[in-house]
Structure formats: structure tokens, C-alpha cells
């Protein structure tokens, strides 16, 4: 499993959306897709290939873990569940903080420009 160190550059857009969606806790694939849609006000609609490709990379990077077998589930339900690992959660929070800083700076710049 590859590990992502804290100082690496920011996550690509699809990975960022998925880790932010998983901040809510354990979700299956379709729920991740729906949550990404909700978080982006419907602007981001991930397709199945993009979603599972992204989850695959995040699992490889140790940011997301599959939790399907962690608890007994309905036999008829064949969905796979995922959640953030401890390092995934930390990366998600770092990304969130980075986005907040970005928005704050741009807002301050715009406010300054509006006053000038």
C-alpha cells in the first residue's frame, strides 16, 4: 500500500470530492456519488468508472479503507462500503483548511477591490 505524506501537493479534484464526501462516515459507492452531488450542488456528477477509479487510488494510497466485511450486512446487499482511514481523515481536514484559506484570501482581495 502506498502512503501519502502530509507535504505532498493537494489532492486532484475527484479525490478531493470523494474524501470530503467520506468525512460523513462510512458510505457505499452510490452514496458517495450522491454525497458528492449534494456537496457540489449538483455541479459534480461522478460516473461509475471515475468513482471506482478514484476509490481504487485512494485505497492504494491508504487514505480510504474498505469496510464491507467489518459488520454483518443484509445477504441481499452486495454493496461495498468505504470510509476514511485516520490518515485519510487528516488529509481531508488539511484539504478543507487549505480551501478555507483560499476562499478567505480571495474574498479579502475582492472586498479590498470593491472598496477601492
Amino acid at each position, binding site marked *: 500500500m502506498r502512503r501519502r505524506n502530509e507535504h505532498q501537493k493537494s489532492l*486532484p479534484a475527484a479525490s478531493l470530492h470523494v474524501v470530503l464526501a467520506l468525512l460523513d462516515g462510512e458510505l457505499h459507492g452510490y452514496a458517495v*456519488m450522491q454525497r458528492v452531488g449534494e456537496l457540489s450542488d449538483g455541479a459534480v456528477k461522478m*460516473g*461509475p*468508472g471515475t468513482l471506482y477509479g478514484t476509490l*481504487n487510488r485512494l485505497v492504494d494510497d491508504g487514505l480510504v479503507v474498505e469496510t464491507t466485511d467489518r459488520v454483518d450486512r443484509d445477504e441481499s446487499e*452486495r454493496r461495498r462500503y468505504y470510509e476514511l482511514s485516520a490518515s485519510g481523515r487528516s488529509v481531508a481536514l488539511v484539504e478543507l483548511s487549505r480551501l478555507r484559506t483560499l476562499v478567505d484570501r480571495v474574498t479579502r482581495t475582492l472586498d479590498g477591490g470593491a472598496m477601492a
Partner: protein
Amino acid sequence: MNADPERGFLRAYGALVALYPREFRDEYGADMVQLARDACRDDPTWLVAGRVLVDLAVSIPTQHLEAHVHRSPSHLVPLIYTAVAGAGIVLALAGGSNVASLFVGLLALAAAADASSHHNTAHNHPPGTGHGYDGRNRGMGALR
């Protein structure tokens, strides 16, 4: 909603999933079809089909590129370079003062050594064990 277009779409999508690299489709193919089925429950089939077609067009090449990047190097590459090196050196010796052949032979020998070391490195660090993330980020950033 009429189930026939949905069934037809899901069957076609299931067939198109076969275009992904084998390892990826073995791992996620069934989940992807299940996700498309779930999406058809919430949105019109034509809308899901359109979205999925765009996704296929983007994610199939992406997955093939990733599979290619993480493919184990062939055992044959160092062997071929070594054979070329041997032939170059033999030609140089047989030809007496054929500096060009000697140069080709030595160059191929260096390439064989380099290919062999890459081969060993790839075996020591198989996909998913620490090497590759940066490479993926560099090459695939726009596609992710």
C-alpha cells in the same frame, strides 16, 4: 419507468465495462453496473446513459494508462539489449577497427544493465507499495 430501456442499457453497460483493464473490471465491474442500476432508480435512463457514456470515454483510457504505467517490465528487454550488445562487440572484433560497432555494442550493454536494474527495482517495489503515486500525479492530474 419502463424497465426495458433500463435493462437494455444495463446490459450494454455491462458489456462496455469489459473494455476496462482486466484487473480493474474484475475488482469493480460488478459494483459499477450496480451503481448504474441504482442511478437508474433516481434519474431517467437516458440521463444516466448519457452521463455513463461520457464517464466511459474518460475513465477507460485513464485506467488503461494507469495499468500501463504500473505494468511489470518485460523480462525480454534486458535480454534483447544484451543480444544486441553481444552482436555489436562480435562485429567490432571481427571487423578489426570498426569503432561504430564497438560503440553500438557498448551502448547496448549499458542499456541492458540499465533495463535490468529497472526490472529489479520494479520487482522490489510492486504497484501500490510506495512508488508510483508521484508519477501518477504528474501524468494523470488532469484526468482525475
